[in-house]
Structures are given as structure tokens and as C-alpha cells.
């Protein structure tokens, strides 16, 4: 398992995500930083080609849109 990102980089991405460390508190803010290693793993996993085959550009997502009835 990879290490969590640096405190400096975490402060930057948290600010970009609209999270205020003052409101969150130092302990929770640090715990969130510890969890970023799982974010990086998930980001890698969902981009990994299944069965060794790269995902084609035309590969569609699992659709969730349905035409709603009034």
C-alpha cells in the first residue's frame, strides 16, 4: 500500500475541494490525509485494462439515465 500524500499537497487538494481545515479540525483533517492512499489505488484500479486489453475510447459507461415519466 502506498503512502498518503504529503501534508502540503493534501492542504492544496483539500482547499481545491472546498474543505476548510479550520472547520474540520486538525485530527480529522490528518485522518483524511491518511485515507488518500486508497483514493490513489481506486483511481489506478478503475483505469486498469481488464483482461490485459486497453479500454477502447468508444467503451461506454454503465448507463444510469432513463427517460423519466412525468
Amino acid at each position, binding site marked *: *500500500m502506498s503512502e498518503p500524500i504529503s501534508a502540503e499537497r493534501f492542504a492544496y*487538494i*483539500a482547499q481545491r*475541494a*472546498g*474543505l*476548510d481545515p479550520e*472547520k*474540520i*479540525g486538525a485530527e*480529522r483533517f490528518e*485522518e*483524511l490525509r*491518511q*485515507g*488518500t492512499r*486508497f*483514493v490513489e*489505488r*481506486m*483511481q489506478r*484500479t*478503475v*483505469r*486498469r485494462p*481488464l*483482461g490485459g486489453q486497453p*479500454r477502447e475510447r468508444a*467503451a*461506454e*459507461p*454503465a*448507463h*444510469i439515465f*432513463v427517460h*423519466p*415519466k412525468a
Partner: protein
Amino acid sequence: MAQSIGDPTQLSLAGASRAITEGALSPVALTEGYLDRIAALDGELHSYVLVLTDEALTAAMAAEADIRAGRSRGKLHGIPIGLKDIYKTRGIRTTAGSRVYLDHVPEEDAETWVRLHDAGAILLGKQETHEFAIGGPDFTLPFPPARNPWNTEHYPAGSSSGTAAAVGAHLCAAGMGSDTGGSIRGPAAYCGIVGLKPTYGRLSRRGVFPLSYTLDHCGPLTRTVEDCAWMLQALAGHDPKDPASVDMPVPDYARALTPRIDGLSIGVIRHWHEEDAVAGFGPESTPSPAYIAAFDAACRTLESLGARLRDIRLSPLLDYADTNRLIMLSEAFALHETDFRERPHLFGRQMFARIGLGAFLSAADYVEAMRQRRELCLEMAGALGEVDLIVSANYTGPAPRIDAVGTWGVFERASYTAPYNITGLPALSVPIGFEDALPLAFQIAARPFDEAGVLRAGFAFEQAAGIYRQQPPMAASLPAR
């Protein structure tokens, strides 16, 4: 009347229902029996956050009068149940296990509760849940975490923890949970009961607090597979007001329950627990030898019942689990975004840390996960084109101590339940044995809307293995008053 059948809370839902139909059991006696057990045992188990004593007794008296007058509403009439406290109940506090909704009294009922109520079920109370069905066990929340009925020092799993604990300890006949990554089937496994996550779209989710719109499922937790089939019968069916609900015929689930499963072809996914768990998640996810032995023995039992088993291989477990989690975190963070930014102090520590990770995911991450999801669905559909059912592991060891469950365990340990959320397939957790006097379980999954198939195999296995007859010491009858 109840004396002729002994303690009615020792009966299964189906057993109690038959006794009521035969006039051998009064719904009032049954309800009183469960309320007595809650009063005596829930101070240790913490499975309920609200007990509706007066309302339940009033409903039981009405049920008794109706049944005596020949106005039975069917198999669930007079049966006391519980609801995870994310199911909205009109006029009854529904907290989602959170300070955010601590005083929330909904103005409408969850559609699933409407259906159970219309079928005559009696609501005993609202049951403990991890905060918004994700944050727990958390000792900083207003309600203490539920405990495992087999050993209250241990974890019952979550997030439908209170419901599973209550069903296992005979503090209700059955209950309703929800499942976004395994929150019905995990607690069912650790508490030694049966849990069904139906097909996505089979049961309405309307009126249940969402966690992740495209992964959330509602489903029953019961002590036997037959009970599960009876609950599902009352619950299944189209809800035009739930955008995910599918208008499909509802079969007679009880008719699917047969003692043998001759000719059924079953694919067994061994590599998820024998190879992928350690490769993808690390050595802490190593299955226990006792689990591997119990899983193999369960497969042999299925063969002895007439099924044809063969091993199948799919993508690594991590692909299914991480895709499920990325989608769940994205959708859950979007749902709670304003509260996370404006009043984060209201959330418990576990909820905040887990869902907070969704703040760091991008739209591209989400779309890539949904593309991966489609590929995984196609892969699973291909496998189910060659076999009738799939069998795979659930938790691969006994429940840990509740004080050993950390914030990141859900990400660090292998999840065997997530593949059926990401694909929306029906999956049933059934007990297969014990380790250190704590239950073990496996899962049976099927093609979309083939709940009858998983119930059929689950029932045949359950009857042959007989594990359901072993109940936790806490489930024993109370001393006579």
C-alpha cells in the same frame, strides 16, 4: 394458546406464521415475547435505537382481531419485524444514525415498509445503523454500535448492524437492511443469519436514506431462507416512483424452495479468496484455514444435492471492489457535500473520514469507474450465460472484536460482497459453519431477477447442512417469569 408451542420467539418467521394461521399462536403473545426479550437483552446488544412498545402492542391486538374475524392479510400478518433506522417511518423518528437527523420525523413511509405494513407486519422499532449506512462502528455517535449476538465483544459487521444483531438474537422475527457494498450480506455472515441483496430494481428504495444512488439495494435479513422468501414475496414489485424500479413479474418464491437442486449448474469463484484477496489487499486479507475448509465443504454439500459445480475465473476481486467504492464515494460525497463543507462537526469520525475521500475524486474518475462497471457487468453476464448460479466467499474468517475495527478497514480488507452491488445481481448470504464459536458464510448469486434461483439453492443447502439450527446463547429463551 402460546403455551402449547413453547416460547414463540424461538420459532422462525414461517413457523410463527403457520402457528398464527392454525390458531395456536396469538400475534399479541408473539409481540410481547419479542418486547420482553428486547427489554431483557438489548441493553447489552444495542440493536434498537427506538422501541415502539405501545404501537407494536396496539398493532398486534388489531392483527389478532382481524385474523380471528377471518380478515387475514397473509403470511406476514401479526409478524413482528424491525427496520434499519434509515427506513423512513411516518411520524416516527428516523435518524440515519446521525446527529444531522437526530430529531428528524418523516412525513412519509418508505415504500418497502408500506408493503410490509399492508401485509400485516408489526413494527417493533427502529434498529441501529452505521451513520448514513457507512460510518461505523463509531463510538462517538448518539447511539452505541450494535454488538454481535454470538459474542457481544465482537463486531456484527455493518451497516445493517442493529437489524442483523436483532434477528440473530431473536429480538424480532425478521428485519430490513440496505446494501451498497455488502451491508446486508456482511452482517448476515457475522451474525449467522440469512441476508438477501435482491437484483437492483427488484425492491423499491423510495423513502430510504440514500448512500449511493446506483449501488443502493434494500433487502431482508432473516433466520432462515424460507423466511427470506416470504419477506421477499411481500416486498417485491414495481414502484413507479423509484426511478430504478423495474416492472418485472414477481414469481412465487416459496414454490422455488425444494430439498434438492438436481441439474443446477454452479460456477465457483475460488480465486477471489484463494489468490486475489492477498494479492490485491495484502496479507491481512488471508482467509482462515477454517474458512477455506468450510467453503469447500459447503461446495461438496451443493454437489451432494445434485448440483454440477465447476470453477470459474473472473477479473481480480480488487477490480470489482475498488470500482464499487469509487462510485459509492463519488455519489455519497455529492449527496452530503454541503453538510461536509458547512457543518462537518455533525458527522461521526468514521463517516467523515470515509465519505470525505469522495472530495478528492474527479468527474473523470467517476466516468472511468462507470466504464469499468459496464465491463465487469458484461464479464459477469458472460459467466452467468454458462452457469445457473455463482458461489463465492463472504467474509473469510470470524467476526473481529468490535474494538479492533478501524476507520480504514473497509478499504484495507478484501470485500467479497461488492461484486454483486456493482453488477446489480441478486446475492444471498447463507451460514456455512463456525470458527471460534462465531459464524462463517458464503454467497450464492444469480442472473438479474433470479432471486428464486438463489433462494432455491440456499434453501436446499440450509436444510442439508442444518447450520441454522445452531443459535447463539443469547437467542435462548428468557427464564420464565
